[in-house]
């Protein structure tokens, strides 16, 4: 056999596999068409931008979450990091009057540090990632509350919103940033050595370690990226809301379960090693679409929660079934 020609890739997908692979895209398309036909005011440019904007923030968080999940790390410290990043932004920028670039720099450093804390817990203290990040979430939330003394801070200086709510070429900066994050994530996961190591560590930690992959370093990078993505989302959300996301002791409007749903629908496995970041974007869109449609229909909140629950269960079942099929 001539070894100078590239071997061809096999191309076969049974119908059931095809459905599992593309069910998400199909569902999103069908939902879109259904809403376009039956929901008044749905099909307008403004509404489309609203949907994209809503999908953006959660999508960015989900991107970071997915990257860590692919490495086998479940980073649920989202709420804590959101709170901390939002509070840091408000305190430094608004209360202390710091210039925006410096504030953002500190937020980046803060996110980096939270990522380090998480990775120390997981790699050095060898604590299960889900447990460890649940604990650190409380820790970060506590720090955030301490920084504000429990009070909400309203952003009055115009630059933050000026930058993050800008609409270059008529499209929200948030949406641009989302595409940038996903683009970088895609390249990282599919075209770099580090990306290959994320997958390897996620599927078979021992194999990765014994092959010479520096699992401590990979863990650190994955969790730092997750924290940074969340921090970015926090800054955008703070700008959009006009005040800190923290109300008393909780963050309203953001729920870790939604991030899970987006990641799971996007094909991430809770067992690590699976996930394609581009699908997350569609999953985030799907949820945003659903929410938007229900809003326009003036459906009661319970419907949204019920459907979210169904989507969550469906996504977990899909993941479990896929794992079992793989194990054959």
């Amino acid at each position, binding site marked *: 056999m001539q*070894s100078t020609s590239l*071997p061809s890739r096999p191309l076969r997908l049974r119908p059931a596999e095809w459905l599992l692979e593309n069910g998400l895209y199909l569902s999103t398309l069908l939902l879109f068409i259904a809403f376009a036909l039956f929901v008044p005011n749905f099909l307008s440019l403004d509404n489309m931008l609203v949907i994209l904007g809503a999908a953006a923030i959660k999508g960015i968080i989900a991107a970071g979450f997915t990257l860590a999940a692919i490495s086998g790390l479940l980073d649920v410290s989202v709420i804590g990091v959101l709170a901390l990043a939002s509070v840091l932004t408000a305190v430094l920028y608004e209360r202390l009057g710091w210039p925006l670039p410096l504030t953002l720099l500190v937020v980046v450093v803060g996110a980096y540090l939270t990522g380090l804390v998480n990775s120390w817990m997981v790699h050095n203290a060898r604590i299960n990632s889900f447990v460890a990040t649940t604990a650190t979430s409380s820790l970060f939330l506590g720090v955030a509350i301490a920084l504000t003394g429990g009070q909400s801070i309203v952003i009055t200086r115009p630059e933050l919103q000026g930058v993050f709510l800008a609409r270059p070429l008529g499209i929200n900066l948030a949406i641009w940033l989302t595409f940038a994050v996903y683009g970088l994530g895609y390249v990282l996961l599919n075209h770099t*050595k580090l990306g290959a190591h994320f997958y390897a560590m996620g599927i*078979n930690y021992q194999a990765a*370690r014994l092959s010479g992959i520096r699992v401590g370093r990979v863990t650190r990078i994955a969790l730092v990226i997750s924290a940074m993505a969340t921090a970015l989302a926090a800054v955008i959300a703070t700008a959009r809301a006009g005040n800190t996301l923290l109300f008393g002791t909780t963050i309203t409007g953001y729920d870790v379960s939604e991030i899970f749903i987006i990641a799971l629908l996007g094909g991430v496995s809770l067992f690590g*090693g699976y996930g394609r970041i581009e699908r997350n974007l569609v999953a985030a869109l799907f949820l945003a679409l659903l929410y938007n449609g229900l809003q326009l229909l003036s459906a009661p909140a319970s419907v949204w929660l019920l459907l979210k629950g169904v989507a969550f269960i469906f996504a977990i079942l899909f993941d479990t079934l896929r794992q079992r099929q793989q194990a054959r």
Partner: protein
Amino acid sequence: MDIPILETRALSKSFGAVDAVRGVNWQVQSGTVCALIGDNGAGKSSLIKLISGVYQPSAGEIWVRGEKAQINSPQDALKLGIAPVYQDLALVESRNVVMNLFLGNELTHGPLNIFLDHRRMALEAQRVLLEMRSRIPSVFEPVRKLSGGQRQAVAIGRTLIRQGEIIILDEPTAALGVEQTGEVLALVQRLREAGKTVILITHNMSHVMQVADQVAVMYRGELVHTTRKEDTDEHQLVARIMGWKPENKESKENKETEAA
């Protein structure tokens, strides 16, 4: 080739009260197949893990190519050309042959060498499989779809990709059928022909007699016997594995009273 490619000097490893490896002085010559045999619990796996950087010695030294080596991690061992193939093969099941062959060692190109070179890896993977005369149909096949013998080939292939010089095979034929076992043994001989040094851990005496040049026997953590294949046979090896020593007749009687 007088300087052994691998040498251990008084190498020891204890886990609490258990002495897994006790003062092992072992020399492995370059380009030979050295069988490491011994009963379960004799310390073979522990010795190998010391050499491959998974464990750190409690005492003693490891010398590679005539120089003292500090092996504190699997990466250190890999850099010295020590390429272990563990019993569970350490393969990533859901990924394909190419990615498994290059695990931890992926080829890159482009600016700052960040981008994976899928093309070059696929070609290289094919070349290695061809060299091993493996019958794996496609390098894009996910590993979980391969048979035991094919997986073994991928695991061994990885050592070739890594330019491994000292290839350690831990019970490579344990879970294989007759035909696949034959393939693996043929592979071992091909590795030697390519100038590699192979350390083969096995329980199967007939395999030892088939492919090994040297045999090292471990018993209760100690290296009790080394010999050339020509100077021994299966019976003698089995006796050594069970702790038989040739010094005097009393040693056998001592064992009987010990057991009583």
